[in-house]
């Protein structure tokens, strides 16, 4: 296990370096500058600004400076928000995205797991079709339609919940964004759950349990659920990263101040520091969660450890 993890770590470092280099070059190749506007800045003003952000140096030298800072845990300055460093902005936005993502993740897993299990128990029945279609509508309706729709109905028409803002994580503020974020993940979780549950239900030991005349709910909860959840684990790693960071649309509509909005603004405004910071953060998380999934798998299924 130790050698397995060391190997993962050894691969992770150069991977991150390559990702950093590619995104850095892409960012700097992009036409347009963070300081462009309707009127060009006078050359002496532009020179002062570029000097401050090291933009007057060759790109490779900038990259070396960037990596040097990165190794000390410093993501550098934001090119757009002059009052903050990228690290500070991420530190501020991360808890929002994390909390939002965690709840959405939980909701998606619960709802998806429930739908998937029910559908599997009534395989190919009308209930199966209805449940799976319902789950699927969460995917096919883009969340940039769902979000304003939720706002319109629950905030504007009914006035039950706030239409936006985070308010330090008040539960009222969280409900709409959490629902909007979770729904698009419910379908895939339900689909995986249904598949694995059907497989487990067909397995010999469940048949034996059935033959013994144990009640179905008992069989499902006691014997089938745990093995059926296993395939979900593989999906949940990347999905977790996706849910936590993939809140771009949600952030834009609900003005929650999460990471997604930072990335969108960063990319469009050419905030080199911000885009690099978030890219590196997400790459690290992805690698981390992939490793966690692998380790979980290795723990569950000894066959993998050998191969």
């Amino acid at each position, binding site marked *: 296990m130790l050698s397995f993890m060391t190997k993962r770590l050894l691969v992770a470092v150069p991977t991150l370096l390559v990702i950093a280099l590619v995104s850095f070059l892409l960012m700097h190749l*992009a*036409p*347009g*500058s*963070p*300081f*462009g*506007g*309707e*009127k*060009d*800045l*006078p050359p*002496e*003003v532009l020179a*002062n*600004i570029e*000097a*401050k952000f090291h933009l007057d140096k060759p790109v490779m030298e900038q990259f070396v400076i960037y990596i040097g800072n990165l190794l000390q845990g410093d993501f550098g*300055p934001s090119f*757009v*928000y*002059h*009052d*903050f*460093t990228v690290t500070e*902005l991420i530190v*501020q*936005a991360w808890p*929002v995205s994390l909390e939002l993502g965690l709840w959405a993740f939980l909701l998606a897993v619960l709802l998806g797991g429930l739908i998937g299990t029910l559908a599997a128990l009534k395989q190919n029945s009308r209930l199966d079709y209805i449940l799976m279609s319902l789950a699927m509508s969460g995917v096919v309706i883009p969340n940039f339609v769902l979000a*304003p729709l939720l*706002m*319109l109905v629950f*905030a*504007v028409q009914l*006035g039950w919940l*706030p*239409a*936006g*803002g*985070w308010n330090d994580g008040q539960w009222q503020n969280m409900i709409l964004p959490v629902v909007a974020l979770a729904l698009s993940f419910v379908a895939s979780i339900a689909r995986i759950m249904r598949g694995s549950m059907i497989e487990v239900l067909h397995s010999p030991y469940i048949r034996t349990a059935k033959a013994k005349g144990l009640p179905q709910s008992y069989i499902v909860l006691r014997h089938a659920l745990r093995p059926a959840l296993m395939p979900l684990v593989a999906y949940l790693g990347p999905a977790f990263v996706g849910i936590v960071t993939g809140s771009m649309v949600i*952030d*834009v*509509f609900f*003005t*929650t*101040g*999460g990471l997604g*909005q*930072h990335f969108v*603004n960063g990319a*469009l*405004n*050419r905030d080199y520091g911000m885009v690099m910071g978030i890219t590196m953060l997400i790459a690290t998380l992805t690698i981390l969660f992939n490793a966690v999934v692998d380790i979980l798998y290795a723990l569950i299924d000894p066959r993998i450890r050998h191969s």
Partner: protein
Amino acid sequence: MKQKHFVKTCLFSALTMASAAAWQPASAVVIPEGVKLAAKQEITLNNSTEVTSVDPAKMGAEPAFNIGKDLFDGLVSQDDKGRIIPAIATHWEATDGNRTYTFHLRDDARWSNGDPITADDFVYSFRRLMAPATASPYGWFADIARIKNGSKVLAGEMAPENLGVEAVDKLTLRFTLDEPIPFFVKMLSHPVMFPVHQATVEKHGDAWTRPDNIVSNGPFKMQQWAVNEKMVLVKNDHYWNADEVVLEKVTFLPVSDPSVALKRYLAGEIDVLRKLPTAQLKRLRKEYPQELSKIAPSLQSTYYSLNTKEGPTADIRVRQALAYAINRSIITRAVTANGELPMYGLTPPQIDGFDPKIPAYASMTQQDREKEAKRLIKEAGYGPGKPLELKMVIPSYKDDQKVALALSNMWKSVLQAKVSVEKLEPKVFYATKKGYHIYRGGWVADYNEASTFLDIFSSDGNGPSQYLNAKYDDLLRKAKTGDNSSQRYQQAEAMLSYDFPLVPLYRPGYQDSLKKPYVGGYNFTNPEQNYYRRDVYIKAH
């Protein structure tokens, strides 16, 4: 919101200046008799984008200037008509033919931590603004004011200590200018020119604007800043005129999509909405008549630049035809549809000191204009066998896209022209000055004088139309020194509406906005759209 160049200043008028010194403070809340104030004096506003900085020296765009006017206070301020009123300075005098300005500071002005505001604070702040190390995106603004040695300090050729600003004594501040600038005092009402607290800046460095660190001197001080969610300001009890400030709390939201902002307004989470989604205007006018509030016309002009050196638009007849073929009233009434007014020249007519003559083609009927456009385009050699093909480029803002598509459709139906519209992200668009025939353009007055607009098409303007006309340059140069200005500007404007390096389109008129009925004292009458929350109050509701 269009990223036009927002510098707001300078209702240029030497006469107003002279009397301004005698102007009595008017920055007091005027609450009509019989109005009962609400117990909770709090307001939430949409600032449309997250601000890039609240450090006066690092502000670079309107959202920051808007908040800057609440957090900080300068030597002078503006009233709701745009007139200069005293702020930290009680009175001032201009001497040496507008080359020297001396300001007398009030003795009761304090920072939000209780420290007194002195002339030294201003000296420090101006030196900091111009120092290359600060890298201020608006440092050039102070340079327009021609403070002595400003250009050299900005370019790093001289130490900031040589800047023409000095503290005569604790409460007397003197500026020396390189050139006579009659509208100098006007410029000082801009947030970039506001002071910062030296000890705080030196103690915390770049981090001094954090809510925990910041020390400011305006009617409000910062309480919380959750980037991309909200910024909360609360009343600053040390503000020199704090007795007159009614609001206890101002919250700014950074919602950029007008339709999202509208939902939050309708849900009661925003109290005032200045930018309404075009598609909703009719419905809002019908359903919320009591909440409508007009914004007074501001000094802006929207146009499209034509490439005068390359492609079909190098032919003057093509440019004329393009300008004639547009039905501006359809654009303003159906496309932008929020009170905009058609423009046939570049400079808005309400500009100070110059009354632009309306060009001849403006008084033709639309039918005649289109007939003339067809004749010109035929004369230029385009027809069914050889259709006019043009490439247009615009930034990817929704509103621009609609106008651009309407234009290309008009040109298609009148001139049978094929105009391809390419939208680029704003940052890419601004870096694109070549390779197209038609460019979206727009300008917000830097100061209230015709040259702010006419300069765009001078050779120094470096615009995509590449007009480069020596005669035009010469007219402008002479007009700016005050030599027979009005007549020369007239001639320059006439050249533009003959040569058409641009297609003039429209300017803002009275614009609808939404305001909850319980918001008082918030009037959108300032011609430079400088609105101050120190005058606002909440009625009992």
